[in-house]
């Protein structure tokens, strides 16, 4: 039976116990929603003792299903004030599953100042260790030190100084499979500061001597369906630009049609977008000994990750993604891919969300504090974050905090969280997702690009956003979204997988219902936290200012947003 690890930071004790029956068939985002609504008061202070940090596996953890080891992290968000589930790749979910651990909850806060990390050893023993010697040490160096101490077979979930300083943009970083680089991030919503508020620096998971065995209702049937499923995903991946290049390939589409944000979501086109596009990226990889097609977790067939080296062939960053490139790049009028890679590295190292931070930097440019396109000035501002200067700390609190402080009118946030790399006027369904997702402005909650009639048109956008938001709720409870994207042609197979694992009817509607229930639970949580329909709107300038690339405004009727989740 799966275990649950409860870490009580007030008592400084860890308990390992069988997971409660009510969570047995849940995982990922679905598990987090159900756990939080039962256990964390929606009106609590996100950085106070009542909030809890939940880290969990998906419903297919421990199986051979490709990308089943996606790690979900949740809690009440210090950034949005609402419910938050942020998921990441890396090897931690796999290692937790091998240890037989389905979920970890971190409760309360220590009575006295200090810093600790949780250690799960190869025999499955769990302990809280003093982490004061690691205080102020950022993710890359921290992982090196942990590897020196426990060997390189450990998986690490950690925070950098972003989390320690309770920055609302703080991420939780996870080590990548094989390389051990802490470059996979549960980035959004400031969950790093929630972990920081618990004074928990890290969770270190050793490879167990004895691997946990999953209990199947019908193992033979599961393996049969699983093989079919994995083959389908692998076949889809072959033609997937995310596999062949990486998520950077998105820029080839968004750069040409006004979806790529430019100069703080001005709606302009960026003529030099290909300077930060696929050709440049692939040329740099091959010239400098970098790589793409890297799996971030064991058994992944999508392999969208990469390793990006600097001009001298020295490792700079990995998991170098489209959103980081779009928002530190064209949205800050920067076309220097190496400079952007350096910014990505700094953010991963400090443990802050690149989307939130890059948008905060765009606020500095919009207000004239630094010039558009000045990558050196950006690096200096990131250095201020690292140094903890007054302004550096402000950047750490994200786009809205900086924008308000500098008197910027056009602040691209929903539920206090900054928009990802897609202009909502030119992919209106994504705009609907930004507006209505319980997560705040989050592209991973339902990116509709290319799915409605016309990205910049209104028709069918709400419909597509609704369908995707539901689908992603169950995808985020099962696997990586990029693998799920190739499962659309045989959704009933997911019903078969659930039934052969947990028993009961092989019915896809079980899976779909989990998506709807999760979404409605999250919406209810936010409502109880005090959010209203007014929180389900985009910033006014998207309704008012035309995108210069297409002439389009965000012209979705408020009522369409209000009834989006009527089921």
């Amino acid at each position: 039976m799966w275990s649950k690890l409860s870490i009580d930071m007030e008592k400084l004790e860890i308990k390992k116990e069988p997971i409660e029956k009510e969570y047995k068939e849940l995982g990922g985002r679905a598990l987090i929603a159900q756990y939080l609504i039962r256990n964390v008061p929606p009106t609590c202070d996100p950085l106070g003792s009542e909030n809890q940090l939940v880290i969990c596996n998906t419903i297919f953890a421990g199986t051979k299903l490709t990308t089943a080891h996606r790690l979900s992290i949740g809690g009440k968000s210090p950034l949005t004030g609402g419910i938050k589930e942020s998921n990441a790749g890396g090897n931690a979910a796999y290692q937790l599953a091998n240890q037989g651990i389905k979920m970890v909850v971190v409760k309360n806060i220590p009575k006295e100042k200090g810093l600790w990390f949780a250690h799960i050893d190869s025999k499955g023993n769990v302990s809280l260790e003093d982490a004061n010697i690691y205080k102020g040490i950022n993710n890359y160096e921290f992982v090196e030190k942990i590897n020196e101490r426990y060997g390189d077979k450990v998986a690490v979930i950690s925070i950098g100084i972003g989390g320690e300083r309770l920055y609302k943009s703080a991420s939780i970083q996870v080590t990548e499979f094989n390389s051990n680089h802490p470059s996979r991030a549960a980035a959004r919503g400031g969950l790093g500061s929630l972990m920081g508020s618990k004074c928990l620096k890290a969770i270190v998971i050793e490879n167990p001597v004895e691997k946990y065995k999953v209990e199947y209702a019908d193992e033979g049937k599961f393996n049969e369906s699983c093989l079919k499923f994995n083959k389908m995903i692998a076949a889809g991946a072959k033609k997937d630009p995310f596999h062949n290049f990486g998520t950077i390939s998105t820029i080839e589409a968004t750069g040409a049609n006004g979806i790529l944000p430019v100069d703080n979501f001005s709606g302009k086109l960026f003529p030099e977008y290909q300077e930060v596009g696929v050709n440049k990226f692939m040329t740099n990889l091959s010239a400098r000994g970098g790589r793409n097609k890297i799996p971030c977790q064991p058994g992944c067939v999508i392999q969208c990750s990469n390793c990006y080296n600097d001009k001298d062939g020295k490792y700079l960053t990995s998991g170098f993604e489209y959103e980081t490139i779009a928002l530190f790049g064209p949205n800050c009028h920067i076309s220097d891919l190496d400079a952007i890679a350096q910014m990505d590295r700094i953010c991963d190292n400090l443990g802050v969300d690149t989307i939130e931070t890059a948008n905060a930097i765009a606020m500095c440019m919009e207000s004239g504090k630094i010039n558009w396109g000045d990558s050196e000035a950006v690096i200096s501002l990131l250095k201020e974050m690292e140094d903890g200067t007054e302004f550096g700390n402000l950047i750490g609190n994200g786009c809205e905090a900086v924008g308000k402080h500098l008197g910027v009118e056009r602040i691209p946030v929903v539920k206090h969280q900054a928009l990802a790399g897609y202009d909502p006027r030119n992919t209106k369904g994504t705009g609907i997702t930004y507006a209505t997702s319980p997560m705040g402005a989050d592209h991973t909650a339902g990116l509709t690009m290319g799915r409605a009639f016309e990205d910049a048109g209104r028709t069918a956008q709400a419909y597509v956003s609704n369908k995707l938001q539901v689908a992603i709720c169950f995808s985020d409870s099962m696997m990586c979204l990029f693998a799920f994207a190739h499962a659309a042609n045989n959704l009933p197979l997911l019903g078969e997988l659930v039934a052969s694992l947990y028993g009961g009817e092989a019915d896809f509607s079980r899976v779909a219902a989990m998506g709807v229930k999760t979404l409605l639970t999250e919406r209810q949580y936010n409502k109880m936290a005090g959010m209203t329909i007014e929180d389900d709107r985009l910033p006014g300038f998207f309704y008012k200012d035309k995108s210069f690339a297409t002439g389009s405004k965000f012209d979705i009727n408020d009522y369409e947003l209000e009834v989006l989740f009527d089921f």
Partner: protein
Amino acid sequence: MKGVDRMITSYEIFVPTIMGSGSSLRTGMKLRSFGCKKPLIIFDKGLKDVGIADVIVENIKSAGMEIVIFDKVLPDPPDILVEEAAEIARTENIDSIVAVGGGSSMDTAKGVNVLMNNKPPIMNYFGVQKNLLPGVPMIFIPTTSGTGSEVTNMCVITCTSRGNKDSVVSPVCLAKLAIVDPDLTLGLPPKLTAATGVDALAHAVESLTGGQSNPLSDALARDAIRTIAKWLPIAYKDGSNLEAREHMILASTFAGMAFTNALVHLGHSIGHTLGAAFHIPHGIACAIALPEVIEYTAKTESDKVRMICECLGADVEDNATYEEVGSTAREALRKLIKSVGIPNLKDLGISLEDAVNVAPKITADAGLAIAPYRITAKRIAEMIKSAYDA
């Protein structure tokens, strides 16, 4: 929505059309002017029986064409039949297609054209297709005033393996020319006149209230509604009234042009689903809850629903609420539909329980994507209930 102007739109004007009493006699001449030598002529047996098919076939022959005939068209054309016709077309090496008849003949022709240079089965091409290989030139000659299919790029096919209807949307489904000849509709019996006429009405009112309407489709739809309101009852009562037939076929083509731009939504989703569940003819199925559908759209499309009231000659006060606008439109539409003897669900012998149980299936229809705002199965069930014996 904060002070939004009309969205950017594109006007889709696809099919050149010649229209007028006797125009179908230009078919042969037109084919020749396109450089065609061997058309496949598609129609159903009924058209042969009433003598329409023979006249057109002769007209084409007299233009010096070698002809191939496919006269096995069925209502709600099944995919296997379309594939059979396509096989004939390819084997005979035809260089053009002429479809004569209602929506089924034209849908069959469209399906055949899709399969001229794209491998069967047709179900592989359901959905919006941008990269199909082109087929051959097609001429469409409608013999009912309803579908508007002669001017659209959509081909509705019954998928026999899945037991539902789906459509191919592609430039390959477009005719090179539509020939709209009211003479061909003179012999339509009253029931068919009514059922096809309310189909055209549904196209028009749904186009006006759909998410993709534009000024062009609005103008076409408004004119179609006015024309249908005035002339459908006359054509229904006196099928030999050529003036009424002229107006009705014009309205049908205009409504087809309107929904090519604006698309149809919930009314057709209800129509397709009820039609499949209870084997109700398309036009009647689409008309059943149409008044309730338009009432529902008034919440966000109040101005458009006012236009509908105005076109139907129903008075609405300047300061009327959207609820009042909606209920006025519902009553006016129902009055028109009833006036041409369209049966309700009760008349059709369907139980209320069975009818209401279809609601969840309707929410799965792709047409809901274009509805003005999201609607639940519960609300659709209420609409069906309201329409049941109205």
